[in-house]
Structures are given as C-alpha cells and as structure tokens.
C-alpha cells in the first residue's frame, strides 16, 4: 500500500510576459512505508519544488496541478487549515540550510513545544517532556540543559539534528529531507544519514531524500528517481540504477562520482548547463548536452519506456561511450 502517490504533478510559474513556466513537469511516483526514495538532480531540476508541492508550500504565485494523494486523500486544493494538520504530523520536511531554518529569537524548547502542541491535545508540561525525548532521539549531548538555548548557540550539524527532531516530534509517516547535509561537513553528513537510517529502521517511516549527490543517495535509498529539467527521466531500484542505467543523463551522473582507489586524470563531468525552465530546448531537454543524441531527440520529448527501469529516452544504452 503506497502512503503517498504523485500522478502527473506539475508546478507552474509565470514569467515576466505572463507565459507559463513549468518548473515541475509530469512527476509521478509512489512511496512505501519503511522505504527510502532518493530524488537526484542538478539545482533547478525541480526536485525541491516537487517536495514543496507535496507540503502545499509552493511559493506564491506558483500553481500545482495533477494529483498528490496521501493515504488516498487528495492534497492538491486542500484548504490551509486541513493542510496544517498534515504538515509536521503526517508529512514532515527538513530543509537544506540549518543555519537559517530555525527562528533566531526563540529557544529550541519553544520551537519544539509549539510544533507538538500544534498537533496534539496535551498539556504544555507533557509537550516539554516529549520535546526533550525527541532531542535525545537525535543524539544532542545533555539535551536537558541545551533545550533552553537559542539556535545561534548550536553548530550547523547540531541545528540540523534539532530540525530533524522537530520534524519527527509528531511521528510523521513520511519524512522529506531536502539536501539535508549539503551545508554540512562530510563527517557530519555521514553521522546524520546514519542516524536517520537508524530511526527509520525503528519506526518504519518513509524517507524521501533529495540531493544533487548520487553518492549520498545510493547509500541509503531503496529506489532512485533522476530528475532533469522538471521531469523524472529515469526511475528504478537502486541496484538497477547503479548497474543498469539506461538514460545517458543517469550514466553521466554515475560516471561523475569519484571512486576510491581509481586514479583518473580528470573526473567525467557532464558538459554544459541545465536549461532555464522558461526556455526549454525543443524535443528532449537534455539533447544539447547528450552524448547519445539522435535526430529524433531534437524534435520530440520521449515518452516513458516501462522496463525493469522506467526511463524517458529515444536512444537508451548502458554506456555513454
């Protein structure tokens, strides 16, 4: 039973000439309890906007179309008061930059407690106890003392743990992590991902991990979706993606991961830049950068091929050579 199901989700903005600009195009996927879905893409590929659309937080004047079902409940068009019940309690999100994501003028305790009180009909005293418990769950040293501190008194890694504690404080069944470790040191990155995985093993929540780094994604994901120019271009289990990627873009991402013990003169970066969503190239938006481009790619955007992998390419193949 999927707990979240996106079908044909689009996020549209308008440019200066009032022309619609699709930032997310035809995104569909499902998530299962206890599993992790990784979404990979370069900045501007629409992955963060997809996450925001799930929570109904797409900034004004963006419009969301399609269908987002949470336990068979349609979220698109849900009034704010009802959405508020789901945010934080059913679906939680942790954003990229922990330095700015906590309100600087309130203590950690206040920010944790207000989250709990927003979703649970309990006494403030009980909420404080739960807040403390949630901090213990994310390995904050001496939480009973630190809970009275303000955000600026914590390091970046600690702030991210606090934000995770806050996101988990009402036991959501889906946790979205939007580039959770990008702003942190590499050693802290690993600790945080380990911790999240440990919590998942315990409470069987779904994790949607968004990152530009396929390396990080491959460490904890069960499934991976690759996004390019607002669209999922390839989607499959982590094993299939790593061993058997069909889309040249996925191939390019895999080739650009540096491998330990393999010496190379230079990393295989994908040439060029991702396109601006208001000026998508004709046909397949990846064709200007694609090493396997054929004539058809310029004319028509490829539909999905359903295989062991789901992908969108006219000229798929296991190598870019």
């Amino acid at each position, binding site marked *: 039973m999927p707990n979240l199901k996106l079908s044909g989700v689009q996020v549209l903005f308008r440019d200066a000439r009032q022309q619609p600009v699709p930032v997310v195009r035809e995104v569909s996927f499902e998530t299962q309890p206890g599993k992790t879905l990784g979404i990979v893409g370069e900045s501007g590929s629409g992955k963060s906007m997809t996450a925001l659309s799930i*929570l109904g*937080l797409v900034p004004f004047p963006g419009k969301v179309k399609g269908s987002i079902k949470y336990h068979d409940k349609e979220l698109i068009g849900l009034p*704010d*008061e009802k*959405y*508020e*019940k*789901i*945010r*934080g*309690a059913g679906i*939680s*999100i942790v*954003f990229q*930059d922990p330095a*700015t*994501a*906590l*309100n*600087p*003028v*309130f*203590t950690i305790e206040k920010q944790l407690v*207000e*989250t709990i009180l*927003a*979703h649970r009909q309990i006494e403030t005293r009980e909420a404080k106890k739960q807040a403390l418990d949630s901090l213990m769950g994310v390995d904050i040293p001496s939480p009973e003392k630190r809970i009275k501190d*303000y955000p*600026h008194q914590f390091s970046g890694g600690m702030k991210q743990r606090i*934000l995770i504690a*806050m*996101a988990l404080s*009402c036991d959501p069944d889906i946790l979205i992590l939007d580039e959770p470790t990008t702003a942190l040191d590499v050693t802290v990155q690993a600790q945080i991902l380990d911790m999240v995985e440990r919590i998942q093993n315990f409470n069987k929540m779904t994790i949607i991990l968004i990152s530009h780094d396929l390396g990080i994604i491959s460490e904890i994901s069960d499934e991976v979706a690759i996004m390019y120019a607002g669209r999922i271009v390839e989607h499959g289990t982590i094993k299939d993606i790593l061993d058997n990627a069909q889309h040249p873009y996925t191939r390019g991402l895999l080739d650009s991961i540096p491998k330990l013990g393999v010496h190379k003169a230079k990393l295989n970066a994908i040439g060029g830049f991702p396109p601006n969503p208001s000026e998508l190239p004709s046909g397949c938006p990846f064709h200007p950068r694609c090493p396997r481009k054929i004539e058809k790619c310029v004319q028509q955007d490829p539909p999905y091929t359903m295989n062991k992998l789901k992908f969108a390419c006219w000229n798929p193949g296991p190598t870019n050579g």
Partner: protein
Amino acid sequence: MHMDMNPNVSPDSIAEMKKMYGLDKPIPVQYADWVGRLMRFDFGRSFLDQRPVIAKIADRLPATLLLSGLSLFTIFILAIPLGVYSAMHHNSKKDRFITVFTFVGYSIPAFWLALLCMLFFGVILGWLPISGMRSVNHDMLGAVDKFWDYCAHLILPVFISAFGGLASISRYTRSNMLEVVRQDYIRTAKAKGLPRHSVYYLHALRNALLPIITIIGLALPGLIGGSFIFETIFSWPGMGRLAYESAMNFDYPTIMGIAVIGAMLTLIGNIIADILYAAVDPRIRL
C-alpha cells in the same frame, strides 16, 4: 556683542559687562569654561528674565516629555498593526489604500493639518480645546474632571505630532514584515503545520519588530525637535515652545541649554533602545 554699536553705552560699562560674561579672557579659556559649565548643566541665566536657564527648562520639560512620550506610544500602537496588516494583504486593495495613506501622511505638512484640525474639532465642532494644557476653570474641577481636562487638551497635539511618524513607521513595519516572511525559518514554521496566525503574528512579527526598536531611538530627535513646531501651534507649555519664545527674543543661553538637553534626551533614548534590543534579541549580550 551688539553693544559696540550703541553710542549711549559707556566704555566702562562695556568692560564690566564683558567681565561679567567672561569675555575678557582668551578664547580657548572661554571655550573650556563654557564646556565645563555645560557639563554641570549650568547654562547661565536667561537674557529675558534673568532666571537660571536650567530652572526654566526644568519647568517646561515634563510637559514635553508627556507629549513626546504619548506621541511615541500612539505611533507604535497604531503604526505596527497597520504595517503588519498591510504586509499581510500585500498588493491587495487594502494594502494600496494604506500605502496611499502613508504617502499622504508623510507629505502633508503637519502644521497645516494642525490648523485644519483646530478649525474643525475646536472651532466648528467645538469638541476639543485647541490650546494650552488645561482649561481656565481647571483649578475648580474635581480630580476626575481634572484628569479628563488634561486628556482633552492632549488629544490634538498628540495626534498631530504622531501623524508623520505613524506614516513612516507603518511603512517601515510593512517592508520589514515582507522581508521576514521570505526567511527560511518562516518556511520551517509553515512546514511544521503551525496555524497561519502563529506563523505570522508570532514567528514573523517578533523578528520584524527587532529593527523597529532601533527606530524608536532614531525617532526621538525628530519628536523632540518637532515639539517646537507643535508646542508653538498648540500653545503647549513645553520645552519646544520655550525654544520658540527664546528664539523670538534672541535669548541665546536658553536656546543653547535646550539644544544640549535635547541632545541628552536623544542619547538617553538611544541607550534605552540599545538595552531593549539586547533584551529581546537573544543573539546580543550586553
């Protein structure tokens, strides 16, 4: 001194006068003396009635503090909700209406507005007294009536002197609010499922108010300086009106004293604003 021009003053009395005002000493010594006296709030005696300047100011200061304090209070009580409301309805008709109001607010000459209000509420409607601090029959009133008498006399001066600040502070609140709602922690607050009112009126407003505290300090010289215009118009017996009367009578020591006291009040205001800021922003420790 202008006495040099007057042929009727004997050289002896000029010398005596110079000695009395310390003008026979070298300039640097005169300057040092003067600074020293300022430090001790000794501004000399008024040319007008020979009373010590500091005593004249002390008589008038409470009335000015009352008027400025109430104006400041009025500004913040009205301007902040107005600015927040405007920001919450960003780019709507209501927001545009408030924007127009703020532009009118800081373009309208306050002394003219004062005239119109005096004419309308004082003369035509006869609702409010238009000058002074109390009525002629004040001493004969009971305690409660005395209080209401003060209140009635305060309404127009307070409203008029708050008017300009009202416009600019509400505008400032609006732009701060718009800036703050774009911050990441507001997105976090929404993502946690907090209700809309606590996202905006708790998380956003608290942060938007921080810089406004500093503005209190900056608004003070304007209010105190402006007091000379409004107190003159409303015959309010405060320091500003004293400044005006002294200016009209070339009473230099009094004007000097008022400027120094005004600067001091501004300094005190700034220090209070700094302390308040440190008290509400956990990132700053004194």
